[in-house]
């Protein structure tokens, strides 16, 4: 990695941190404008206990003061304590859940990239044959079906049999962490985006295989596999990479639905649970993590460019 790239990455990291702070501030301010307080939904509390609790969470202070305290914590990497489960520190909790979500997200990106590029490439080199039409039809279907529908279909196809064998829900009961649990939700999360990648790869490939340098590669007497993979696909991927940024964002936010459906203990599930529980501290924390994740994912995509295309330098 060149010096320029490192400097560029460092600048981007600073920007990502700023974004995360801004996002969390907006959420913090927004959430404190809601009527009532965090304990409003709890069963009726003894006023003294309630006062003690409010004091424990600094909720008895005016909100600008709370904000200052909270920002101070954030800058030290401390997102505070869960309102519902007293004593649970949010930062380590979210970090743990982020690893789960990132694992799932990466698996989904692999599904997207692998399935999408394979289908797109095959469709392009077999243009206007039944293979092309089948791949294109599959792509339209894949794209039109939202990921939660895929999730239900896949659950019916794969998880439901497991449910009967294990006598319980597949994910929650046996816990998360086994590699064999990853593929099904990753498929559900990645397939709709794989369809987009397939269509883009096909279009890009069709353009590239007509380029002069591909003709040069054939004229040199290279094997078809080398011409397609080394000479055509590598160039065709450059425009495809540019949609990977928004696409990863989609996958990250899509994980909210998928994790909830599959009962995967990740950031997405926490997002839903914390809102339902009105655990405001966690809600803000999750937003902050999401903001950082989206930023980092886009940075990672931008760092792929110079690897694929030597003409791009930061």
């Amino acid at each position: 990695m060149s010096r320029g790239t490192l400097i560029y990455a460092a600048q981007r990291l600073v920007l990502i941190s700023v974004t995360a702070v801004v996002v969390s501030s907006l959420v913090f301010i927004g959430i404190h404008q809601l009527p009532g307080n965090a304990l409003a939904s709890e069963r009726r509390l003894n006023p003294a206990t309630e006062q003690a609790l409010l004091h424990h969470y600094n909720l008895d202070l005016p909100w600008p003061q709370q904000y200052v305290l909270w920002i101070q914590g954030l800058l030290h990497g401390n997102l505070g304590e869960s309102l519902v489960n007293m004593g649970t520190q949010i930062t380590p909790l979210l970090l743990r859940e982020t690893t789960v979500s990132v694992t799932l997200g990466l698996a989904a990106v692999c599904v997207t990239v692998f399935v999408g590029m394979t289908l797109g490439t095959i469709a392009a080199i077999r243009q206007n044959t039944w293979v092309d039409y089948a791949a294109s039809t599959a792509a339209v279907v894949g794209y039109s079906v939202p990921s939660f529908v895929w999730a239900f279909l896949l659950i019916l196809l794969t998880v439901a049999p497991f449910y009967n064998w294990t006598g319980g829900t597949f994910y929650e009961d046996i816990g998360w962490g086994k590699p064999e649990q990853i593929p099904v939700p990753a498929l559900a999360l990645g397939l709709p985006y794989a369809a987009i990648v397939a269509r883009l790869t096909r279009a890009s490939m069709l353009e590239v295989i007509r380029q002069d340098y591909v003709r040069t590669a054939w004229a040199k007497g290279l094997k078809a596999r080398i011409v397609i993979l080394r000479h055509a696909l590598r160039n065709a991927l450059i425009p495809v990479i540019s949609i990977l940024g928004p696409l990863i964002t989609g996958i990250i936010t899509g994980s909210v639905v998928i994790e909830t459906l599959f009962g995967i203990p990740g950031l997405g599930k926490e997002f839903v649970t914390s809102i339902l529980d009105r655990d405001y501290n966690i809600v803000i924390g999750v937003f902050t993590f999401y903001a950082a994740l989206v930023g980092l994912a886009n940075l990672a995509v931008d760092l792929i460019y110079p690897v694929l295309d030597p003409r791009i330098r930061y």
Partner: protein
Amino acid sequence: MSSGTVHAVDGISFDIDRGEIVGVVGESGSGKTMTALSLLRLVPEPGKISGRILFGEQDVLQMADDEIREFRGNEVAMIFQDPMTSLNPVLRVGFQVEEAMDAHRRFTRQQSRERVVPMLQRVRIPAAKERVKDFPHQFSGGMRQRAMIAMGVSNEPSLLIADEPTTALDVTVQASIIELLRDISRELRAAVILITHNMALVASLCNRVIVMYAGRIVEEGPTRAIFKNPQHPYTWSLLRSMPRVDEVAKERLISIKGVPPDLAKPPAGCKFHPRCRFRIDKCFTEEPPLGEVDPGQLARCWVLMKNIQDPESEAMR
């Protein structure tokens, strides 16, 4: 969209010896490039090649995929018109040369790797040792064409086809590329087909000339003879349409009226007759054969320029 069959190239046949440079000239669309691409079976979709394409004893159309692959770049190598787009932008120049050798069995992996720098030096790329790691965008147009030539000759092919190798380059660079092509064909004793519409280039470089029109050879012969005594009206007009430095401007330049025929609807008889100033009735109905007009010189014409008393004034009418 209308569809139809276009016979871009029809019945082309010529001989070429090792060490010889043959120029193929003709207007755009006369089938020069198609002839070359057919020989490598690289005619772009939806183009079709039918009949036979013989290279020596081998029929290129009968070859299995493996055979044609071994043939391309090994027996016959090709250099394309635009060096800016003919090299893969994401692969290092040295690698692209090495890969050309690796694709064939002439050299071992080790030999291919060791030959890259000498090949680049041979095509006179300065500081070849350092530049072997460069990407194409770090090369100038002339250097890229040199790299293309290095790639083309790396397997010591018996035939090298250069398709307008200097058209996309600066005039100053053109001369050095042409010089390089001539020297390298001598060193390797390779036959070279130079496709061009630059008559001056042909005059200075080629031993023999083939003139193409509407997918056919209309005249063929030693360069001197063709330039001195062109027999086909098309060749004659081509030569009269360019100014010459070595002759006092005693003659007016003559243009060829009209455009090349639409090959989906070729004219009957001689394909050149609609634009010909010397046509006779027979030209409208019967296509002339490619006949010998002088030893070694062939022309496809019923009239022949030598039978015309004063072509200049005839053409000016």
